[in-house]
């Protein structure tokens, strides 16, 4: 089954840009990964996911999200610079590492 990366953000505008970049990156590498974005209060309805990545502006919510989704799903905050530079490759690599692929 295809793995799923879930990005979590506040407004959703800039994260949607990053999702596009990551999808391009995954497609060019021939990876079958579902990449999706949602707001913090919609995480539960977007589960299951194999990794949850928070936008840097949501970093303060990391602990709360960890409690919410339980220990089996890795939760991380995206590196500020990678996020700002919309570096799809680096963020995808970080996600792959956390998912163990």
């Amino acid at each position, binding site marked *: 089954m295809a793995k799923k990366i879930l990005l979590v953000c*506040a*407004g959703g*505008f*800039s994260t949607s*840009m990053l999702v596009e970049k990551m999808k391009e990156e995954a497609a060019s590498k021939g990876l079958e990964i579902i990449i999706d974005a949602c707001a*913090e*209060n919609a995480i539960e309805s977007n589960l299951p996911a194999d990794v949850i990545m928070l*936008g*840097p*502006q949501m*970093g*303060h*919510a990391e602990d*709360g999200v960890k409690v919410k989704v339980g220990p089996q799903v890795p939760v991380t905050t995206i590196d*500020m*610079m990678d*996020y*700002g*530079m*919309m570096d799809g490759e680096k963020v995808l690599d970080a996600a792959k590492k956390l998912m163990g692929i």
Partner: protein
Amino acid sequence: MDKQNFRMKIQKFSGKIQSNKFLGSISNGLMLTMSVLIIGSIFTLLDSINITAYQEFLQSTGLKSILSIPPSVTVSLISLYAVATISYSLAGKYNKDGLTAALISMMSFLLLTPMGLMEDGMSTGIGTRWLGAPGFFVAVIIALLVSRLYVLIVDKEIYIKMPKGVPPTVEKSFASIVPGIIIATIMLALRGIFQTTDYGNVHSFIYSILQVPLTNLGGSWWAFLATTLIGSLLWGIGIHGTMIVYSVMAPIWTTLRLENLSAYQAGLELPHLAPGGVFQATYITIGGSGATIGLAIAMLYATSKRYKTLGKLAILPSFLGINEPIMFGFPVVLNPRLLIPLIAVPFINVSLALGLTAVGILPRLAGIGSPLGTPMFINGFIEGGWRVAVFQVILVLISFAIYYPFFKKIDVEAYNEEINAENAKESENVILEN
């Protein structure tokens, strides 16, 4: 160490504000009203474009009276919509049935609203004045109060439990009876109590002791200067300041904006100097939080590869008011070298905009509220015509002038680093002293 500690404390505090269920459901609920509110805004615009030939055409074809209907069932009834969407959001945050909570809240709101027999002696009229902007605070209070009460009643399991085998829908409809009865009784009691006072009803009580004073306070000069400053400072330490400020100010800012919009629609003088979030988006945070539009333009002239790349990436979204790439990619947040322009530019923007509006050089903004992502200049033009759009151009130039010298220094350093790194030929691993 102490500084770090202080930052963590503020971060925690902001996190608390941002994840506060009540504040969160107000802004979520308001976002949900967007779909009907925007219809009202579009038709208000269509109805009031100030071209004589166009207005004559509307009058002669009878279109005028038709175009004014959508605003009067959206903007003018906004409190009725908001009470439902806000309580829906709050109940959802407690994992409860949002629709039931929304309906009970709507009922409660109407139970508190004056009504009476119409002149025809047959139909009952509801005081629509309180369903519009003047009833907005009551809508917010009732939505939060009733929804929380609903959650409490359901949690305490005082609803009627059905034996196994009864279809879940039956249980659901019966479940809503108990909370409904309890809440309706409370509302009727409230209505009764207020009928005996000079205010006559809850609406005029809340309006005069809470809504008017708070909106005057929140719409004042110093409130805008303070919220602008706080927003910038929070961004400086890496917190989404714009969002924090909005989640606290949302009820007041929305009221300011709606009161201007209602007046605009009725062709009256606009009551507020600065209609909240619309004022902020049009002037203060032009090009995104921190008014970084000038920085985005400056990056187009970058000598370093790093900022050239970021500039290309960031410029288009910046014109749409989206600047997270700059905030985090430059980065502007947590960057002491950009703290001065980050604070100065929005502050200059808000001071100039308030001043020029007060003396009448700039028109008051209508409060149309174009959706996030509307290009700058266009959003200004929609709010107040060409003068606003021209002033936005000036704000962009100011932002450029202030950000540029700070940017230039950082850019030259980045360029030198890149050159050195290339010369050293071991590009990736070279660590240069800062």
